[in-house]
């Protein structure tokens, strides 16, 4: 089988380009994040202070949780536009239930998210409605229901129960949302890398027809990822309510697109089939850190860049990553 070996050697050059590409794709964003952190640490006093780290993590945990769910959806080749509205709905539901304590409040928020995710998944997998349209409808519906439940205003959470601990509390001097975030990502990573479900999610997104021929339950896998995305949106919404002391029916506008941006910046292909959960976390943190760095820069008072630059910079990051990805995928095709 000498010919085969020669072939493989020949191809390994091509493969090494692919590997290099995937390193840039996978680790590039991590490198950027580390550079941003080093830059911040050198330039700004207090950047690495426990307080700043805790507050960055506390605030961005919501976005990162949503990005985790979005990652799974996108890996199947779908998209979930409803995450922000579902988070708002969950925040209202959780706030309404909050007098009954943290556990019930949390369960209520999660349940709201899972139900919404189930409907999304059902529409996509059973009725074959485009994910874009199905979740767009859910976005409107969840927002509407949130407003109705909240009677068009924010719903104060109970401060007498222990509910606010979820958003404001610390455990071993670590913010609880950050702990939840890490736990969620560890579980997400295990699910993706060490369970059949995780691998099948990637197979469905990589080649749906092949997945079907391989006997995978494609429809149920799709249903499950939307439910997962709903659950994580629900968790994020519950944290939102606990952190800011109110269920906020109008919060979460545009979160879906920022979550998508986090996922894409992290290197997960929007066409599905490829992805890692950690890069989405890195992507979400990087996008969040841009805001934090701008605050510090303005705090120095030398240059005044308004906070609004963050969107522009985020957009630029997205452009660079997308341009890079499209070049890489194209070089791979040839």
């Amino acid at each position, binding site marked *: 089988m000498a010919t085969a070996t020669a072939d493989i050697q020949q191809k390994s050059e091509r493969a090494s380009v692919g590997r290099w590409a995937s390193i840039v794709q996978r680790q590039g964003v991590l490198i950027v994040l580390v550079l941003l952190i080093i830059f911040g640490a050198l330039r700004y006093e207090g950047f690495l202070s426990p307080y700043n780290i805790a507050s960055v993590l506390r605030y961005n945990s919501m976005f990162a949780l949503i990005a985790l769910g979005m990652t799974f959806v996108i890996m199947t080749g779908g998209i979930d536009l409803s995450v922000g509205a579902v988070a708002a709905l969950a925040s209202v539901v959780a706030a309404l239930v909050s007098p009954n304590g943290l556990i019930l409040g949390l369960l209520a928020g999660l349940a709201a998210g899972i139900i919404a995710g189930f409907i999304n998944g059902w529409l996509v997998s059973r009725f074959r409605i485009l994910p874009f349209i199905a979740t767009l409808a859910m976005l409107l519906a969840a927002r509407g229901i949130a407003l109705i439940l909240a009677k068009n205003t924010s719903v104060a959470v109970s401060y007498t129960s222990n509910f606010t601990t979820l958003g404001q509390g610390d455990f071993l001097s670590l913010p609880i949302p950050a702990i939840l975030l890490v736990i969620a990502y560890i579980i997400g990573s295990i699910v993706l890398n060490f369970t059949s479900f995780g691998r099948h999610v990637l197979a469905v997104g990589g080649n749906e027809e092949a997945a079907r021929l391989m006997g995978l339950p494609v429809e149920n896998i799709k249903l499950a990822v939307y439910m997962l995305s709903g659950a994580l949106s629900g968790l994020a919404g519950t944290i939102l309510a606990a952190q800011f002391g109110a269920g906020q029916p109008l919060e979460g506008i545009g979160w879906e697109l920022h979550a998508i*941006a986090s996922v894409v910046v992290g290197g997960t292909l929007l066409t599905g089939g490829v992805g890692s959960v950690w890069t989405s976390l890195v992507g979400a943190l990087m996008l969040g850190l841009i805001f934090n760095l701008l605050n510090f820069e303005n705090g120095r008072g030398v240059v005044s860049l308004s906070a609004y630059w963050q969107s522009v910079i985020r957009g630029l990051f997205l452009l660079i990553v997308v341009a890079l990805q499209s070049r890489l995928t194209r070089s791979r095709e040839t």
Partner: protein
Amino acid sequence: MANVSTPAPGTTRRLAVPDRWRSYIESYGALIGLIILFLYNVFFTNNFLTAQTLYVNLTQVATIAIVATGMTLVIATGGIDLSVGSLMAISGAIAPLIFLSQVGQGMNLAVTIPLSYLIAILITGAFGSFNGFLVAYGKIQPIIATLILYIAGRGIAQVLTNGNLQTFNNPVFQYIGMGRPAGVPFQVILMIVIVAIAAWVMRYTTFGRYVLAVGGNESAARLAGVPINRIKMAAYIISGLLSGIAGLIVIAINSSSDANLVGLNMELDAIAAVAVGGTPLTGGRATIIGTFIGALIMQLIRFTLLAHGIPDAAAMAVKAAIIVVAAMVQLRRQA
């Protein structure tokens, strides 16, 4: 190996009749829905058939209808434009910046006002061409390509205005949103003109046919000599230009420009109007009038529920149901 993929002629013809019959319902489904909504209001909503009510509804629907018209073109080519709301914010920021600037105020208003409008719209058009370039030549998925400006565009508007509210009070500058030639709100006229031109373009021009051909079968269109990249570019540019116009209307109505709010969520409203109007998101087919009807339906639902004391919020849930129904009807059609 497509040995039996071509159905026999008999089958095709047999299917043709119910197919067409069904397609009538589907093409007119949105219109029927609109008429039902309209009649319902005639009978059950007080003071519905007054010029006042009519104008209120038309005024509110104008910006969505204008943006959705551009969105229809983009979707017809098989794409999508998420950046429309952010582009509205950009034009809404730029026009008053020029108008209120010292140079602007120093010049004759007859020069300043058209100039500020023109520059604002041209800039959003240029951003549209950026979207189009990424999609057509960069071969980047439209969702991602336009997501870039969705995020960065509003930021640009905010940076330009430093996030400040720009207020103004000049009937000429705000004519686009406040003018009432012959008692009819100017933006309503503008909307009707734009919708009519777009419908006409889709029906009577080479461009309209090329748009449908690109979305309907890109490789066939290419082999027939259709300049697919230029057509895609054009669709995104038009979407950008129309978003710019819509942004101007919004700030004129408000007598102020708030980069944080102008055009917020517009991409979703516009896409919803397109979907409800009967244009499939998969491209290749488009109905401008349908989109217009779709926008009117969404508006009338909101109005009807409000008029009967049901909050805006419930209207959103109803809208959601309508989008799902419209999507299912379309799927039926494809089957």
